[in-house]
């Protein structure tokens, strides 16, 4: 009870420092760590409660993300069942080397992120910042490679709504030679690309948000905001980052590998 009374006397001061900051992303704590007072928000009793709440909040958010991607996975499943040949043919058009490199890059970034979380927990500021930076670099590399891949597709008019929608004719010729049958209906191939761009686009958007979050963490981490007692922003961003990686682990085989046998 004594601590609670103490808390309530602090309310005005703590409240004011809060009001001067805005959230950059949905993690409610990042900016609080800049204050001289520990990052405890006034409506929580203690850091442990705050940690429980924010961790559960992130998990709940990830559940909504699963449902969000779930709608697209549902559309993918239905249309692949309806048009198995078109989907396999469309998948062969994708350049597997970019997808494979990106998979490796993302898995590596998950490792560096996990290292960052570890160093925030043991309070090693230097290595925390180093690994956060490394994660950002890998994330940016992923987006760069994705951009190259998109630009190749756009150069061949392989994007939904292109007039006319086309795919690289080398792939078409190779497909027809190998399978001994004509390339499937181009409209159905286009449907694959609706889902491809939808899924990878939303995934890339999540990467961008993740990199921005990492930027904030690096900044506050450099200023020494995180300690063994208080590091949940790093941990929660880690959860988010791993989630985005896992989505890619599903996307890679479903989009790139289904036509290669």
């Amino acid at each position: 009870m004594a601590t609670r009374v103490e808390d309530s006397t602090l309310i005005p001061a703590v409240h004011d420092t809060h009001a001067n900051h805005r959230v950059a992303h949905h993690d409610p704590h990042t900016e609080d760590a800049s204050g001289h007072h520990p990052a405890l928000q006034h409506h929580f009793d203690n850091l442990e409660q705050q940690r429980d709440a924010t961790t559960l909040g992130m998990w709940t958010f990830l559940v909504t993300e699963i449902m969000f991607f779930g709608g697209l996975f549902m559309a993918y499943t239905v249309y692949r069942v309806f048009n198995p040949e078109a989907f396999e043919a469309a998948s062969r058009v994708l350049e597997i080397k970019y997808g494979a490199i990106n998979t490796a890059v993302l898995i590596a970034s998950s490792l560096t992120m996990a290292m960052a979380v570890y160093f925030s927990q043991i309070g090693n500021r230097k290595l925390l910042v180093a690994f956060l930076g490394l994660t950002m670099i890998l994330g940016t590399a992923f987006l760069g490679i994705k951009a190259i891949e998109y630009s190749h597709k756009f150069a061949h008019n392989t994007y939904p709504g292109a007039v006319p929608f086309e795919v690289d004719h080398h792939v078409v010729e190779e497909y027809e030679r190998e399978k001994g049958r004509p390339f499937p209906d181009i409209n159905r191939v286009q449907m694959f690309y609706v889902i491809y761009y939808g899924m990878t686009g939303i995934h890339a958007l999540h990467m961008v948000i993740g990199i921005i979050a990492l930027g904030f963490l690096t900044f506050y981490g450099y200023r020494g905001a995180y300690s063994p007692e208080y590091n949940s922003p790093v941990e929660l961003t880690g959860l988010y980052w791993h989630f985005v990686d896992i989505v890619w682990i599903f996307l890679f085989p479903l989009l790139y590998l289904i036509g290669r046998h």
Partner: protein
Amino acid sequence: MSAIDRTARDMPPATPGVKRIAEPRADERPGSNYLNNGYGWKSWLLTKDHKRIGILYLISISLFFALGGIYAGFIRLELLTPQSDLLQPATYNKVFTQHGIIMVFLFLVPSIPATLGNFLIPLMIGAKDLAFPRINLLSWYLLIIGAVFALGAMMYGGVDTGWTFYTPFSSTYSNTYVTATGIGIFVAGFSSILTGLNFIVTIHTMRAPGMTWFRMPLFVWAHYATSLIMILGTPVLAITISLMAFERVTRVGIFDPALGGDPILFQHLFWFYSHPAVYIMLLPGMGIISEIISTFSRKNIFGYKFVAFSSIAIAVFGFLVWGHHMFTTGQSVYAGLVFSFISYAVAVPSAIKVFNWSATLFRGSISYDTPMLYALGFLGLFTLGGMTGVFLAAIGLDVHVHDTYFVVAHFHYIMVGGTLLAYLGGLHYWWPKMFGRMYPEGWGRFSALVVFVGFNLTFFPQFLLGYLGMPRRYAAYPVDIPAFQVLHILSTAGATILGAGLVIPLIYLIWSLIGGPKAAGDPWMATGLEWRTASPPPTENFHETPVVTWNAYEYAPQEDMEVIGKTSPDDKPDRSSYSGA
């Protein structure tokens, strides 16, 4: 808690001279509450106080409701005559679409959770605020941004797809502002997701010492179940609307069969959210009814755990019944059978609630205050709406009345007779807590009766109309079936009464803010934690974190009450009549 305290807490209203246990002590910053803690526009528009955000929601959704009501008025006026004379058919399509979009996405979905839920959940579980106050404010802004898109599209020319946005009409053929409206619904959806997330985390992690799961008010349980639907269903709506808009903009076949898409997939995805969304609208209302019925019967709720778990059961089963909206589409018959069966099953937890409320009323010491009148209205109308829902779950009958006014009447009994009545009841019940003022009780009871009569006169004839074959969404109907016009005139007359019944509370509630008598901390002598603090509550809700030692509805048995002038030890009810001994 000592026996004396309990007596004080359980004393019925209007007992003079009772020293209340939970009134703020004189030395605790007298008169400081969340309403007078800052007056500038910034103190409201940048507030992180869940109570103020609740008020922001209250004001905005009341405006949306009024707007949706005006559209409803146009629908009813048009249908007075068989010809489409007041509105051209194309205009009529836009009017009913806008009525539906406003009422569903801008009023019913946020209505109870975002206003009363926002205001009350931290108070009820003894927390200082929701877990994420900034996200709470953000979710209000998202609703407003969504509303700007949706209402902006309406001002520029409107949408004519119906609130269901069925493809390929919405994605290919409609020449109205579908995309802008879609963006509005997408954004407003995230408001709903964030509200649900906030509630779930708050209920898990912010409960006061002693506030165990089974001591929580059923209002909180209902909101927990609602939040589950919000976070699991709404993202699917978001992606569905996005795909529809994407198809519309790029003209690529996703749902348009002419381009190789599957229109039924749209319906599956849409109803995967929109059936559970019915429970987003209804469950919080059921939570309110549990509170009101136990308070005004002075009794513990009958079967607390059954009522609590039936909310969760409704949330879970609600996700498995969406196909009952698609009996007349190309859905497989076997899928139809399964959906039909599970739709029957989902009526069971709802019926459990109705039975438990009735059992709570049984031998209660009932007082007919305004909230109770609304709750009793809910009980009757929800039962009718629910029963006709069971009719509609039967494939044979559903095919017969599909897309007729029978369906319209059914879901208005649930949405208006259920949710709206519960919302009004809850608003009256917690009004003294929210604003520290009492509303005029006589006017309150009067308006509850007017609303009840007006509602039934509006929507009961629609059951008959639908059964006779009047289709929904038509501006005109045959002249040579006289029953059609008679019933439509009755319905319009009822809508007029209903409208008047809704304007009365609007006037006296606003009046009460200035002229109403000051409310005590616990004007209803209720047991919930929200009544253990001042009315209106201080910004931090409780001056000291409460420690909970009692169950949610611990009303003393009637014979133990020290009610002056009502009972004496000699004329206690005969206990043998309870047990049949």
